[in-house]
């Protein structure tokens, strides 16, 4: 891609959940780099520590030990407020369950991160939110409420929300986990599109066919990176979508 700047760099990362009697070793020493412009898929069985890593990378959680550099800045020892600021300005998060605000229009949902950025005025906020919605192809849906949107559309609104603050990376934890194959592919098509525009993406999935849309696969096992694969023939989501049998085909 354009430059070889490291967006994310983790070294010897461990995370232990202290549950009183049991200590859960969710991460047992992870070293990983993500370069600017990369599209990384993190794979692994359930419980292998994928979400834990994502939450630490997204500054939602802190590691038990190890170093984490985000965009060249050591995140260790940052205060809660500084972490909130990092989340606000450097990170876009996409969740499996969309997490849109109910009874709140698509546009207002997308605006949300900007409301917590005092540097952005109302006019700029509206423009950025509209632009983000355009990028996921939902400009005309801006006044729709979440319950008036399909699952795929809701996730696209959530993606628009994650990119509205021009983050250095979008972190998506099983974004297609709640979606059927067709809508999963539609969502992946958007991610590929964003990535081709230069946006760095890290995405968790346990589905092999989804991981093939990314250029690089990191496979987790028991809190460690088991292996890493460079995907030779990255699948094109748009072409895959076209190849999918349509609903009409199924009924015919």
């Amino acid at each position: 891609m354009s430059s070889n700047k490291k967006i994310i760099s983790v070294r010897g990362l461990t995370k232990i959940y202290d549950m009183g009697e049991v200590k859960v070793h969710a991460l047992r020493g992870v070293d990983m780099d993500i370069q600017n412009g990369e599209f990384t898929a993190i794979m692994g069985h359930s419980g292998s520590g994928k979400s834990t890593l994502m939450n630490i990378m997204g500054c939602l959680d802190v590691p038990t030990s190890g170093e984490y550099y985000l965009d060249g800045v050591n995140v260790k020892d940052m205060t809660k407020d500084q972490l909130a600021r990092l989340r606000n300005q450097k990170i876009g998060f996409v969740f499996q369950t969309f997490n849109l605000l109910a009874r709140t229009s698509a546009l207002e949902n997308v605006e949300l991160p900007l409301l917590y950025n005092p540097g952005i005025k109302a006019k700029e906020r509206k423009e950025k939110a509209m632009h983000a919605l355009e990028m996921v192809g939902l400009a005309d849906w801006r006044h729709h409420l979440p319950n008036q949107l399909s699952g795929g559309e809701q996730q696209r609104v959530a993606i628009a929300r994650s990119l509205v603050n021009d983050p250095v990376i979008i972190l998506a934890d099983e974004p297609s986990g709640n979606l059927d194959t067709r809508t999963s592919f539609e969502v992946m098509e958007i991610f590929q599109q964003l990535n081709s525009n230069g946006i760095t993406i890290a995405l968790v999935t346990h589905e092999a066919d989804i991981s093939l849309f990314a250029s690089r696969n990191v496979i987790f096992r028991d809190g460690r990176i088991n292996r890493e694969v460079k995907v030779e023939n990255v699948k094109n989501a748009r072409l895959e979508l076209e190849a999918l049998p349509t609903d009409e085909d199924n009924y015919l």
Partner: protein
Amino acid sequence: MNFLNLIIIAFRSLNKNKVRSLLTMLGLIIGVASVIAMLAIGQGSRDSIEKQISGLGTNVIMIFPGASFRGGVASAAGSALSLEMEDVEAINNECQSVKYTSPVARTSGQIIAGAHNWNSQLYGVYPEYLEIRSLEIESGNMFTEVDERRASKVCIIGKTVVENLFDEYTDPVGQKIRIRKIPFQIIGVLKEKGQSGMGSDQDDMILAPFSTVQKRMRGSQRNVQQIYVSAHSEELITKASEEIDEILRQRKNLAKNDDPPYMIRTQTEIVEMFTSTSDTMIVLLASIASISLIVGGIGIMNIMLVSVTERTREIGLRMAVGARSRDILRQFLLEAILLSLTGGFLGIGFGTLSSHVVSSFAGWPVIVTSYSIVLAFVFATAIGVFFGWYPARKAAGLIPMDALRYE
């Protein structure tokens, strides 16, 4: 985060839960409304009492015979003779602060004018009585000292008496009437005064010279039923009443601590007596009403707590996209304040409205003072902050990870 955004956030989230917002406010609306209504009714009745008692006259001091009932026991003997004409003279001549003095001899009876008759009160008084009671003559003249000396059978009548004895075409002045069979000549008519503070008709009275009533109708008794005095000025009322007490004690050979066989009541005392009971009522009613304010506040806290639990994931999301703890704290606090302010506004509206409804139905006077509005407002906001603080702290203390995962 700037304040405008904060308001946008709080307002949006209240707007999204309109019914719940309204229910939350309900307690506060009722609380504020009842405080406003209670204060309005209380203030209204206080004002009308003051106005009516001021209708008693100017700087009036009244002296009644009989013991003041201290400790529930009437201590002085011979109270029937406790006030005499000599006392009236002494007060008039010796008390520096006293301007006018008039004894009052009161009797009631049937009054006949031609074919009409009416029952009314007859007061035997000195001409100065008019000044003391701030009465005015509408037509004709007041009787004079000459009438007093001669015990002339002349009288002044009030508007109600006029209406009941004469048709509208007859001028009462100069007419003859019989009061308890004794013929009197009407020489004047009093200006209308209206209802008194205690609900009696102040226009239903007849005034005649004191000596006339005392000698001709009360069998020349020596005792005086009542003495009306007016002080030179409002400031001198207390001084005048002290002077009167001193003179009377001297005349009756009473020691300092003896219970006197008479009672002195000043206009100020009477106003205080009535307004203090109405003040007690206001305080009582307002405190009952403010309990509902507090209940309303607890309602806000309750709903805000439910709201924090229910919106845990929302809070998690807000934190995930960059809200700091203090942004969340401020949001929930502001929501509580917006709720209580809106509740306060609506409560003031409803309170004012219901005060006027009460006044038009029950005929009570109501006065909504700006003081009570400010009070209700400050109270409502304080309650919003006070009861909103705990839920807001709870929301702000959530850990983003856990909040996001909350089911």
